[in-house]
């Protein structure tokens, strides 16, 4: 017998292997992934290079560590570090847990009013973060806050109970934003759950509650961890809450410091150096995240065998479950929405004026907002751009996930890394990188730059979503198409894509909703004449035009609710499935 031609674990790249790759039909998805990948890498490289320069925007650059030295000598660096971790970790845990519970209730229990229950956790998604901040500041502000004043009048408490500008309030408000991701990540897991896994536990003598704790929830752990770590990252990068609630209360985190060095000092070098610390923190969390997804590959629950989702009878608890969903609906959107509507309909905000409603209805705020050119053009831009970006991002994400997990191309795992890079960078800093990249080019001051920024910022979500779903589709389903005469594009369009439809709908919805209310990418990329709606609202709030901010926010909310309802009832898009 002759010796084997290849020793273990050795691979070579040669013309032969390229020819083999071509014959496997992987070059087109590979090429698309390279294009998307380089778009992502460009601003990242610029940011890193920029952090080692002293120059200001537009002037010459020179290599130096000055920015880093300045950051390291800041005595507030340690409290900032602590604030960032407590704020991001607290919100992520609170939000993901609530989202997971809601997903389980919706997917697997026999709650009454199923149609309503399916919808209720989705509506709070519509609330732009900045509107949540405005509403909760109105409710919890120490002096003029509605709740504090109510408690004072009802019980005679002379000091404010709540403080909108404190860490718990920050965690509360951002945690509510984190619920969305937890819900959207876990819902498909619970919906695609192979019932025989639970049934075999029942057979083994496990009661429903025990089965839930020992089988159902543990199988959802990979998705839960993914959502948790992603929420933590979002917390580290989040912009509105630290700037609108943290800074006034003297609670500094890295993002607000980055924003200050840009908006006050206009010093991009310093801003990128601050974010370097933040990036180190994020990368740690990211590595953790990569581990959790690798972990989830062992948890593939969708096979080629047909499966049916089973609803669990939870007895009388079903009313409690309904109540839980309803309470989340109230806190997540109904109460803030009412506060915003009332505020938008009164001449100006203070507690007494607020309480006189409805005797003092006044449409002045709406008139002013709708006559304000920067709001009107911003509204239009945000609608058009978000729709395009959602489609482009989700489709690219699927192509890249397909390349990584299905084509087995040599080195395709690199895309997993590239596609995750933006998560380590605050959108604010990415948009800074983009500004530097396009300055002096025809793209400067156009929606293209803003679109690219949004694409980069949301790409990781699209990729993660598609990867998770593709990993869950049994490989044999692709291979069956392959041997029965399907080329890669047929496999992709006729098998992979239709099977991904549930996740695609969810991701499209999610990215559209996120992009249309984006502030942190857009805040540096907008220019006079190139407005973005949410940034305009942000500016209203910062200059104290609370009633105008509320009016603009209500208009946004109504548009979003209408869009989603049309999609749900007219186009029958099932976001939850």
């Amino acid at each position, binding site marked *: *017998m*002759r010796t*084997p*031609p*290849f020793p*273990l*674990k050795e691979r070579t790249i040669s*013309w*032969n292997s390229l*020819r*083999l790759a071509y*014959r*496997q*039909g992987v070059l087109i998805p590979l090429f698309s992934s390279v294009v998307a990948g380089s778009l992502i890498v460009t601003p990242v490289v610029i940011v890193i290079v920029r952090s080692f320069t002293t120059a200001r925007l537009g002037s010459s650059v020179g290599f130096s560590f000055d920015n880093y030295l300045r950051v390291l000598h800041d005595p507030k660096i340690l409290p900032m570090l602590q604030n960032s971790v407590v704020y991001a970790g607290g919100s992520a845990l609170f939000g993901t847990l609530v989202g997971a519970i809601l997903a389980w209730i919706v997917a697997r229990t026999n709650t009454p009013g199923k149609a309503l229950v399916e919808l209720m956790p989705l509506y709070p998604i519509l609330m732009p973060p900045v509107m949540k901040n405005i509403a909760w500041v109105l409710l919890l502000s120490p002096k003029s806050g509605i709740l504090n004043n109510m408690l004072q009048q009802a019980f005679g408490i002379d000091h404010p109970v709540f403080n909108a500008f404190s860490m718990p309030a920050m965690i509360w408000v951002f945690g509510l934003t984190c619920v969305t991701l937890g819900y959207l990540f876990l819902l498909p897991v619970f919906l695609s759950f192979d019932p025989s896994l639970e049934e075999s536990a029942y057979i083994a003598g496990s009661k429903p509650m025990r089965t839930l704790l020992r089988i159902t929830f543990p199988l959802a752990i990979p998705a839960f961890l993914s959502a948790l770590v992603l929420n933590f990252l979002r917390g580290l990068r989040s912009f509105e809450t630290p700037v609108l609630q943290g800074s006034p209360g003297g609670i500094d985190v890295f993002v607000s410091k980055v924003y200050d060095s840009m908006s006050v000092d206009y010093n991009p070098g310093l801003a990128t150096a601050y974010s370097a610390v933040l990036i180190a923190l994020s990368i740690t969390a990211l590595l953790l995240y990569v581990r959790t997804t690798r972990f989830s590959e062992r948890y593939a629950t969708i*096979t*080629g*065998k*047909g*499966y*049916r989702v089973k609803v669990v009878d939870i007895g009388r608890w079903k009313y409690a479950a309904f109540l839980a969903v309803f309470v989340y609906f109230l806190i997540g959107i109904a109460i803030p929405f009412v506060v915003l509507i009332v505020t938008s309909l009164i001449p100006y905000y203070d507690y007494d004026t607020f309480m006189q409603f409805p005797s003092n209805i006044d449409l002045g705020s709406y008139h002013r907002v709708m006559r304000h050119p920067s709001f009107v053009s911003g509204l239009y831009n945000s609608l058009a751009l978000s729709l395009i970006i959602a489609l482009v991002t989700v489709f690219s994400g699927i192509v890249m996930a397909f390349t990584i997990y299905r084509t087995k191309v040599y080195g395709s795992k690199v895309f997993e890394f590239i596609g995750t890079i933006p998560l380590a960078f605050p959108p604010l800093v990415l948009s800074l990188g983009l500004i530097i990249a396009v300055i002096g080019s025809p793209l400067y001051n156009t929606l293209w730059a803003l679109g690219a920024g949004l694409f980069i910022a949301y790409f990781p979500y699209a990729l993660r979503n598609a990867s998770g779903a593709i990993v869950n589709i*049994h490989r*044999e*389903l692709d*291979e*069956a*198409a*392959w*041997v*029965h*005469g*399907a*080329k890669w594009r*047929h496999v992709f369009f*006729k*098998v992979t894509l*239709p*099977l991904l*439809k549930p996740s695609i709908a969810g991701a499209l919805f999610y990215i559209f909703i996120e992009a249309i209310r984006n502030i942190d990418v857009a805040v540096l990329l907008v220019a006079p004449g190139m407005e973005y709606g949410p940034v305009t609202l942000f500016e209203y709030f910062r200059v104290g035009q609370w009633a105008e901010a509320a009016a603009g926010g209500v208009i946004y909310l109504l548009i979003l609710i209408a869009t989603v309802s049309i999609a749900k009832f007219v186009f029958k898009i099932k976001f939850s499935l």
Partner: protein
Amino acid sequence: MSIVKVEGLYKTFADYRALDGIGFEFDHGILSILGPSGCGKTTLLRCIAGLEVPDDGAVWIDGKVQTDIKKGILVPPYSREIGFVFQNYALWPHMTVYNNVAFGLKLRKVRDADVRRRVLAALDLVGLPKLEDRYPSQLSGGQQQRVALARSLAMEPRLILLDEPLSNLDAKLREEMRVELKKLIKKVGISAIYVTHDQEEAFVISDYVIVMERGKILQYATPDEIYNWPAHQFVASFIGRSVLVEGQVVQAAGDEIKVSVPEFNRAVLACRRPNGLAAGAACQLVIRTGEVKLSSRPFEQSENVLQGVMTSRDYRGGLTDHRVQIGSREIVVTSHKLCPMISVEGEGDKVFLYVDKDAISVIANSAVSAQGADH
């Protein structure tokens, strides 16, 4: 011309060698690849289909080269024009039965009317008429299996590959299906390669059997030859109910040898002589216990009769398993006839066993012969 030819296939996953120099040629009919799990049989099938790219080697289907790593040739699976039935069926859950079966035909731009005719014919062939509008999740396991088969047959391939297609069905259905599957493949007149770990299934279904272990082919022959003349001790122990004992040739004359078996109190058994086995050589005997005759009284023959003690009996309906202790070895003899048991159960009965020459296969073992010289 052979339907499948494979040469020098190697495939390594991380630190596990799935294929270690596989080569064979197969003309026509049904070929089973038999082996324990992890022996590389599925990897071999996937390399033939083009789903897996081997590290080295070449594959021809119907005389046309499909894979040749050295020359950089790799025909993608969609151009190999073969059928493939997956272990988990791999029916697309978002398509109806009709669309599952029609999938490949539509891709080949077959006219709609022809697609319809061929899909319905294929479903009819596998015994599933009138179910074309159902979704896979609305079918039973057996029905899903048939749809998967119809999907491949509708393409009218010259070769169909089946990867443990019956392993997810219950026993009774499995037995029915394997007979039906064989009839079906013969009726359509195509060749098939059938991967299984169940030797009975392999024997029932196939014209030829390849026995694999650890990425290597141990034997490639007809079921009959493999059963009666296993070429390797692994094959012998993997096939059917048999007992493997060490022995030493004490006498060799003509085409017969006499072998002494230490485990059976050094009893001597006469066996057919394999090529080149001389007296003094060590060997292994494979005794097919189904062919051993058992009696409570002495046999007329004096040669090849063993004495033992029957310790228990298990009636299996039609067949009975008798546990017999011979020397230091307990063997299970299965026979249609119930051997009477007289004394108290547990203490055992003295019994006689007649082992015909034809019930013994001899495996020459050079490794054993070196040690055997000491005796």
